[in-house]
């Protein structure tokens, strides 16, 4: 047999070359794994990815009303219009104001509560449960209760103010206080969740570090600011990121309590998008607003990540 004949005979007995799909599918372990994630993937595809892509497409159309087939592709016109839309940017400003008040406010309050709840106190589990209860309560129910609590005449908050000699405040009727009232409600509602995250962070700090600091003569304030807080940096970062993302998406309390008023002072972006889409049925334009909101949240998150990395490099984190 010649040399070439030998090669031909050898290759004839080699297993047939499998294509990429066959090679992928032949790995039985992976096959099972992919079958496990298939339902979740289908769910994501149907209810997240397809709507996402569809909404991006919509943002380039002039779709109004119920029939998307009537929508015309208008390129970047919605985005061009949006950049000069004073009402939209006013809503963005209101959202930024809410975020500036809510994110640090909720983080500080929840950290203080977590520090107390981290002590070995009698009934601490009961208090942890109580603080967590607003988190699992319905926003609508909570909002209605808070409307009563903030009532200028019969609300308990104004009753307390009157007792200490301060004139009652029309919390929800005054443009200068309405957003503050919403922030107070949102902090009260979310403080339990943040407290749990802080608690997890606090309990991960080795006790030896605090003991060493105490031996070195550090007082409690110094220990908190030099040991506890720096070691909580990953928790702080997580809460700041999720807080900013969540606060840019605030909707329920605005929808139930103020309806964007008084005088547009609580007209936040998501509520603005909702009214545009589901009250004016201006779906195409509302979709472009939603994508700008996404871009803003994305940019805010990138800035936070960049800031954290920079702080990390300087040794603070």
């Amino acid at each position, binding site marked *: 047999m010649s040399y070439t004949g030998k090669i031909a005979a050898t290759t004839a007995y080699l297993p047939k070359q499998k294509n990429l799909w066959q090679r992928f599918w032949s790995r039985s372990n992976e096959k099972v794994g992919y079958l496990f994630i298939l339902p979740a993937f289908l769910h994501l595809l149907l209810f997240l990815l397809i709507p996402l892509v569809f909404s991006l497409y919509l943002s380039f159309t002039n779709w109004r009303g119920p029939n998307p087939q009537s929508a015309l592709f208008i390129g970047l016109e919605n985005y061009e219009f949006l950049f000069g839309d004073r*009402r939209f940017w006013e809503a963005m400003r209101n959202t930024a104001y809410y975020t500036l008040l809510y994110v640090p406010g909720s983080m500080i309050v929840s950290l203080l509560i977590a520090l107390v709840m981290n002590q070995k106190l009698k009934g601490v589990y009961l208090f942890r449960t109580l603080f967590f209860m607003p988190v699992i309560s319905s926003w609508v129910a909570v909002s209605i209760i808070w409307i009563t609590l903030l009532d200028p005449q019969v609300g308990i908050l104004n009753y307390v103010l009157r007792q200490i000699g301060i004139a009652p405040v029309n919390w929800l009727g005054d443009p200068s206080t309405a957003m503050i009232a919403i922030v107070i409600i949102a902090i009260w509602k979310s403080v339990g969740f943040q407290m749990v995250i802080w608690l997890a962070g606090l309990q991960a700090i080795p006790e030896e570090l605090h003991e060493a600091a105490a031996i070195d003569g550090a007082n409690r304030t110094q220990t908190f600011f030099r040991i506890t807080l720096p070691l909580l940096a990953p928790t702080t970062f997580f809460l700041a990121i999720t807080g900013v993302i969540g606060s840019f998406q605030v909707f329920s309390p605005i929808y139930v309590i103020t309806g964007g008023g008084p005088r547009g002072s609580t007209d936040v972006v998501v509520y603005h998008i909702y009214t545009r889409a589901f009250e004016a049925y201006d779906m195409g334009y509302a979709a472009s607003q939603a994508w700008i909101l996404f871009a803003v949240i994305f940019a805010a998150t990138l800035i936070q990540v960049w800031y954290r990395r920079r702080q990390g490099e300087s040794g603070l984190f």
Partner: protein
Amino acid sequence: MFRIKHLMKAALISSLALVPLGVFAQDTVSLTVVGVTVPPEEIGTPLDLAYQALVSSFQEANPNVSINVVEQPPEFETQIMVDLAAGTAPDVWRAGQALLPELIEGDYILDVRQCLDITPDLTMDRFIPSILAIHQPEGPDGPVYGVPNGFTPMVIYYNPEVFASAGVEVPTSDWTVEDFLNTAQLLTLDSQGRNATDPDFDPNSIEQYGVRVRKFFVLENLPWVWTFGGNVISEDGSTVDGYLNSPETIEAITFLRDLVLEYHVAPPPNALDQMIQERAFTSVFLDGQVAMFPRGQWELVGLQNQDNYDPGRVAVVGYPVGANDATIAFEDGWVINSAVASDPAKLAAACSFIDFATSPVFQDSKAVTGLEISANQAVADQASEVSQWPEIQAVFVEEANDALPDPNTRFTFFAIIEPRLDLMMENILAGADVTEEVNLAVEEIERELSRQ
């Protein structure tokens, strides 16, 4: 084997026996209807009973039609848009006027002239012309998208007891803007009982206001604009420039602002909020703390439900007469899904239903429920004979002649403009400069219109 044969025979006989039932089922037309139910808290009310009577009497008269009553969800306007997009919308529904342009533009509702051959009794002359016009965007000879069910013009409610105790004549239908202002001033009292025409009147201790003014531009304030000879948007809907910022419109808006901030005859927004924290505004009105307010007929029921209700405390009159004698009308109508046209039997059933629903059989109930006026001319004319508020009903029917349609019924994009107008009005009533606010609104609305 024997058993199997018998079983097969039995199955054959049973299936043959079902054939006539199948024929019967084919003859029965199922019609899905939304708009003949009430929310759970209103079950047993006269309106609920009227709807039940409508469905049962229609079923009785049309045994071949099976009405499938679907509950109306709270946010029905959004729901119907979703249902239309999904192809699951009902066959017939009661539509609020604001959605009409969207439904017409999308070709979702039927031109009911198609019903005229099927149900010759359903003639358009049974309806009040100004209300029917809402369903005829192309004029009296054009298509008729649905038929009107009921409506209400906006009027001024007043409390005659407050007028009597202040020694002020009750208003008549020909009162002017000056009469209105003078009346409001005489009815506004401070803690010392001095009215707003008194030089010593103290605006910081007002205990009784003459009138209520709110931000809702189309709902409550547009008739004032028309009274002053102004308007809000051009006839073809292409611009607000020269309309919203016309001298007449600005004069009307300034007048409304001055009622609150200059004459102190209407409570500022904060004071109004505080008045209604503990009880409904209707209760405040019945107690005489505010003597007049603009509203539609539906408010009669709200007033009647208050503990301090007394028929002697409620009367109505039209908006004052000025350059125009006009008010705004709000209407709801029966519309037929355009998809129904492909099924002749269903189309006939739908046409019969709207014929039935707009005939005296159902429309007579409107005078009893008191929520709105029948759009059926003959029924409306006789309403005061059966109404529990005959004098009030007569004023509403008279005002219907001066009623102009809500701009929302003509322009799909007005849903974007209206909240901007409300915001403008809210800022003005809080003290913002009228011309500046109006010009800002015009600029933003013009920008919106450029997209349409």
